[in-house]
Every structure is written in structure tokens, then in C-alpha cells.
């Protein structure tokens, strides 16, 4: 099977690849967003702790 045949998916290429692309995007969002949020939480807590340390 050639690569262009693979892409065409027997004529259903648009549907198959859109479906997999959407699923992929959802997976990506669900990886990136929690990691970014986690980093923000860490930075905020770090900052609060440093500030509390200064006040002492």
C-alpha cells in the first residue's frame, strides 16, 4: 500500500483522519493543561512561601 493510498483510507480519508485528529487534540489538551496548571500551582505556592519568609 502506498502512502497516498494510506492517507486516502479508501475514500474516507477526511472522516477517518478528522476523527483521529480530534481525538489526538483532546489527548494533547488533557496533557498540556494539567501540566501547565501544576506548574502554576507550584509557582504560586513558591511565591507565597517566599513572601511569608520575608515577613518573618
Amino acid at each position, binding site marked *: 500500500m502506498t502512502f497516498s493510498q*494510506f492517507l486516502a*483510507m*479508501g*475514500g*474516507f480519508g477526511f*472522516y*477517518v483522519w*478528522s*476523527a*483521529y485528529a*480530534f*481525538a489526538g487534540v*483532546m*489527548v494533547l*489538551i*488533557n*496533557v498540556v493543561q*494539567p*501540566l501547565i*496548571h*501544576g506548574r502554576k*500551582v*507550584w509557582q504560586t*505556592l*513558591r511565591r*507565597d*512561601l517566599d513572601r511569608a519568609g520575608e515577613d518573618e
Partner: protein
Amino acid sequence: MGEFGGLACVTRLIKFTHKYGAPKRFYLLAGKLVPWFAALTALLMVTGLYLGLYWAPPDYQQGDAYRIMFVHVPNAWMSMMAYMAMAIFAASGYIWNVRLADMLAKATAPLGASFTLTALVTGSLWGKPMWGAWWVWDARLTSELILFFLYVGYMALQASIDDPRRAAHASAILAIVGVVNIPIIHYSVYWWHTLHQPASLTLTNQPKIYATMLIPLIVMSMAFMFFYLTMLCVRVRSEILLREQHTDWVRKLIRTRR
């Protein structure tokens, strides 16, 4: 079929929760597990994609379009399992006042909603070439749509209540009511569908499943299951840090790490 495997996993998860009920212990354990879960997820995903998109032969009835099944079905299964898990975590947190269980429930919701949305969109993309319409009121898709509303409602309720304890317990009740209603909703929708479209094929009447189809399906399902576990751990760890920020162990952790 997949649901029973899922239930076994969830039961294991509950026992696991009980042992590691203290947030600190769970934080450390989850931290160790994430790399393993992530590696497994990546491995299973790549394998599944290869098997589903290349290795499995085209279907005699649906041609290559049936390959959408390998993303649609795992996401549909995970959307159901995640709701069950969410309800069990939430109920445990509510009944036994386990904060960690509340956090697990809260972390599961966006993942479950994503699975549901993916199931809906991929189902729609599968339906268009098969039945000619962008949306078919198929029994499974309609149930998924209602499930999506259940997830969104849960997250909206959580977001609208400021006090974390009240938010957790209120959404726990909602989740329990939802879980009790799901079989009723399923039955009603299924019945409604057969009544109005008796002759037409549905997405639930999938192409006759051969071994070549079953293997990629199972691999992809496991891939999404481990994906759920990976991101659940990541989310809960952030939540633990946030909720437990005033404890000694968290302060020490933040001071000493990067």
C-alpha cells in the same frame, strides 16, 4: 465486556485509595507511578494506532471508515467508566469524609467529559459517511450526549460553589443521582430509538467483529485507560499541593525542590 474489565480496575483503584488515603502518601506514590503510566500509555497508543490504521484489513461492509471505531469505542467506554469511577470516588469522599476521594472525583470529571466529547465527535464523523448525516439520533450517541450534560453539570456545580467541602459533597450527591439514573436513561433512550427507527442500522450494530478488529480495539482501550490513570495522577497531585499547602510536608517540599 469492556465494562467488567473496567470495573475490576476501578475496584483495584478503590482498595488502592483506601491504603493511600493520606494525601501525602498518595502524592509520593502517584509521583512514582506517573512515568510508568505515561510510558505504558505511549507504548499502547503507538501500537494501537499501528494496528488499527495499518495492520487491520479494511472491513467488507464499511471499507476503511470503520477504523474510526478504534478511537470512538475506547473513548465511549472510558466516558462511562470515568463516570462510574467519579461517582464511586465522590460517594466514598462523601460517606467517609476522605478528602483524597473528593480530589480524585474532581480530577476525573474533565477527563471523563473529554472522553465523552471525543466519543460524540468521532461518532458523528463515523455517522456521516455511513448514514449521510452529521448527527444521527443513534441510541449510543444520544446516551453519550446526555452523559456529556451530566459531566458538564457536575463541573459547573463544582465551579460555582466556593467552599471546597460543600462543593465536593454537593457534587457527590449529584454524581450518585446521575449514576443511579444512567441505566434508566440508557434503557429509555434505547427504547426510544428502536421505536422511531426500527429498520435502520445503528452504530451499536457494529461491523461483525473479527480478531483483527478486536486486537486493535483492546490495545486502544487499554491505551486510553492508562492515559486516564496518568493524567488523573498528575491532576490530583496539583490538587493535593493546593489543598494541603499549609501543611509542613508541602512547605518543606516546595522549599527544597526546584
